[in-house]
């Protein structure tokens, strides 16, 4: 039984959420707009916002020429990557998506209207955030990332954080979600070295698309990543949180979002149970 005692399942995760996170903080981070504003007020770098659409009137007033060539729209209260649309360049009167498909202005409008009607966040209404599409740091592009990889930094109370890099792949359709085929890399939070790679249920050494060796590579700016995530956790008042951080091509470290109910896959990727008291020594052994 002791083998399993430190592994956290969904039931215990929900109990930990209730123990460590007060409802005010949960409500705050469930709203990506409010979270970004609060973090920015406290000097924590966040992904810039191009526009916020609060209702259909805002959508009607939105002009295509005011948008950047490459941009991302997401629901303010979405979860699990639902409702995110990524457009990578202009194409005639519309844009191209990550798969190279033409997306007309009308289709974009329909999608944003769906976001506003709460269809992607399980609510009766929501808001849409439009952000510029960021390019990843060159070191991350070299790892074979398609799209923007992000770092998930998971904090449980005062324990050392767990850090995982999520690489989008062809199979995941450019999304970083692991359950959709993305690759999860366990990162040593002190040195930034990739210590383990997992794709689906299998431990791997090389990138499934490019064949490039992943284990042993280094992630840049890991110290700033961990510091930024810790600051975000402190500001939002959460005791148990998963902070998504990105490093762009100018090596800017920015918070993408904060999750009050983070997923548990990080345990598999890092090969470390969430409540392990020996996490520090576990990293030291590698």
């Amino acid at each position, binding site marked *: 039984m*002791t*083998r*399993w*005692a*430190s*592994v956290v*399942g*969904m*039931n*215990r995760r929900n*109990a930990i959420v209730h123990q460590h996170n007060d409802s005010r903080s949960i409500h705050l981070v469930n709203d990506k707009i409010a979270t970004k504003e609060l973090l920015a007020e406290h000097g924590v770098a966040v992904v810039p916002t191009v526009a916020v659409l609060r209702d259909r009137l805002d959508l009607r007033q939105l002009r295509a020429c005011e948008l950047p060539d490459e941009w991302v729209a997401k629901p303010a209260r979405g979860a*699990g*990557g*639902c*409702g995110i649309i990524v457009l990578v360049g202009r194409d005639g009167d519309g844009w191209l998506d990550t798969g190279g498909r033409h997306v007309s202005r009308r289709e974009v409008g*329909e999608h944003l*209207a*769906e976001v506003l*009607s709460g*269809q*992607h966040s*399980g609510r009766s209404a929501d808001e849409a955030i439009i952000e510029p599409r960021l390019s990843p740091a060159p070191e991350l592009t070299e790892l074979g990332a398609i799209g923007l990889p992000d770092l998930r930094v998971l904090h449980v109370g005062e324990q050392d954080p767990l850090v995982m890099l999520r690489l989008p792949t062809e199979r995941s359709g450019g999304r970083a979600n692991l*359950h*959709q085929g993305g690759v999860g890399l366990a990162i040593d939070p002190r040195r930034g070295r990739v210590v383990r790679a*997992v794709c689906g*249920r*299998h*431990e791997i050494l090389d990138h499934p698309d490019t064949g490039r060796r992943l284990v042993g590579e280094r992630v840049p700016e890991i110290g700033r990543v961990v510091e930024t995530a810790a600051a975000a956790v402190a500001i939002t008042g959460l005791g148990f949180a998963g902070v998504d951080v990105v490093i762009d091509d100018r090596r800017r470290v920015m918070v993408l979002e904060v999750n009050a109910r983070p997923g548990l896959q990080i*345990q*598999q990727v890092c*090969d*470390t*149970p969430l409540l*392990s008291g020996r996490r520090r020594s*576990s990293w030291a052994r590698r």
Partner: protein
Amino acid sequence: MITIHEPTDRFGVDQLHDPTDGHGLHRPPSFADRRAAATPLFITAAASVATVLLHTADPTSPVATPPPLAVLPVAVAVAVALGLIVGVRSLGTFTPALVATAVVTGDAVETMTIMLGMLALGLLGERALRTVMLPRLGRLGVLVAAGCGALSVAGTEDHLSTASVAGLPVVAGMMAVERLWQTLDADGATESVRLVGGTATTIAAAAVVTSAPRVHELAITSPGLLAVVSAGLILAAGSYQGLRLVELVRFCRPSVAGAAS
């Protein structure tokens, strides 16, 4: 209660219950009086609750089918236990419980036909309705109207029993369709198929448990007691914080548990 005041030898006994001061004048009730009056009320209330909970009907009465409201808590308990202890995921938390209730209290074949018909209608109709730019709520509304219309016609022509046309499978079917659309959008077809499988498993388990002879009998004779027992089981399952059975497999490979030892 004394209404006639006579100086009799019963004075000493009856004075305790006499609301007058012995001279025909009313005195304010003392604490002891209020407590004496309140106790029977409390006992009456407790007795009423016990009567409701332990209400028993004649098991030989002509009502052979248990009322849906009596069966539903048991089906919910099964769904909760499967979700929290086994880790079975379904299209909506309580959708399988509603369908199982409809199966047990109505015609099983008709219920499943309606349910599968609604799912098929949802899957086939969504693409067509998307072309007219209807939001999800609108698409669902159209499907509910279409489903209810078809069932009303079938019910009028006596092709379906009244119990099945009551709407439970329609409501449950639409809840499942909405969740199916969400899952298809967010996680794709594979995950949706998994959820459909989980839903079918939960419906089957809940239907088997709720149609057990003892549960059937209790649902008819003591529905209140059955609800309390179900609530207790739900409470017990809800407070379970250990790993779900499917998580034992999930965390087994790659070996997360190995690092904890």
